[in-house]
């Protein structure tokens, strides 16, 4: 295995594993927001806005993994082509 193959494999692993945690977290957050909306439909505006901000925060973790995968694929510092 040379550096290119390891980089491609680890890019896939990084995104694949890194998407698990944010996926579960976003599911819990949306479930909580749905629950709150069903209890208090008049607070829709506040709940939706807070949900969006929270989802963005959670999603950042997955985006970090994605950025690392993209760096490995397109701007790998250890591959001198």
């Amino acid at each position, binding site marked *: 295995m040379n550096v290119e193959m390891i980089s491609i494999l680890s890019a896939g692993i990084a995104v694949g594993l890194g998407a698990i945690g944010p996926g579960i977290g976003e599911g819990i957050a949306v479930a909580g927001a749905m629950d709150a909306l069903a209890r208090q439909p008049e607070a829709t505006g506040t709940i939706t806005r807070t949900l*969006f901000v929270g989802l*963005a925060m959670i*999603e*950042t973790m997955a*985006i*970090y993994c994605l950025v690392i995968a*993209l760096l490995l694929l*397109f*701007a790998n510092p250890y591959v001198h082509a």
Partner: protein
Amino acid sequence: MMEKATLNAPIVFHVGPVPIGLEVVTTWVIMAVLVGGAWYGSRRLSATRPSRFQVILEMVVGFLGGLIRDVMGADPAVFLPLIGTLFLYIVTCNLSPLIPGVKPPTASFETTGALGLIVFFTVHSLGVRKRGLLGYLRTYLEPTVVFLPLNILGELTRTFALMVRLAGNIMSHELTIAVIISLVGLLVPIPFMALSILVGLVQAYIFTILAAVFIGGAMGTVEKG
């Protein structure tokens, strides 16, 4: 051999020794469009017979003002120029790839890094202006002195996250569409392009809200996020 793919923008032309990338050109075109649109829209304002464009502009300004009032709990007139411009610029950038051949400037880390730096310096300068230098520095010692390194780290990482979130989302969506087009070219990418409209609007909204929350947190009008 495959052509070497990089994340760097293609260089359009050089000004002396400085290379000018494609994003910079796109950014200047978008700036010209925004300034021209604002000039055209506010040229003939009327309270009794508003034009169609004026109604749209009033809707946008009203929406942004309400957002600032809800999030920051402060007078929107002070913050509308900065936060409204950030929102309009990011929305225009995110929706620019709907024009064929245009690469969105927000897909590169340089653009979003510059936007993040604007928010970073605004947060600190407004915090110092509102609370005084010592009063602002004292907020880093809350709740106790032990939290000083964590507070400083939090300042840096949240700006970094602001930059990575916007660029990562837009760039990844561009790449997804490129991969789908390389697999099936006809009609199939259209739903993904429609999804990119939603992603662009939501990301611009999130960037704006987070900027408002950070500024409000430094000024003490909202809980520090």
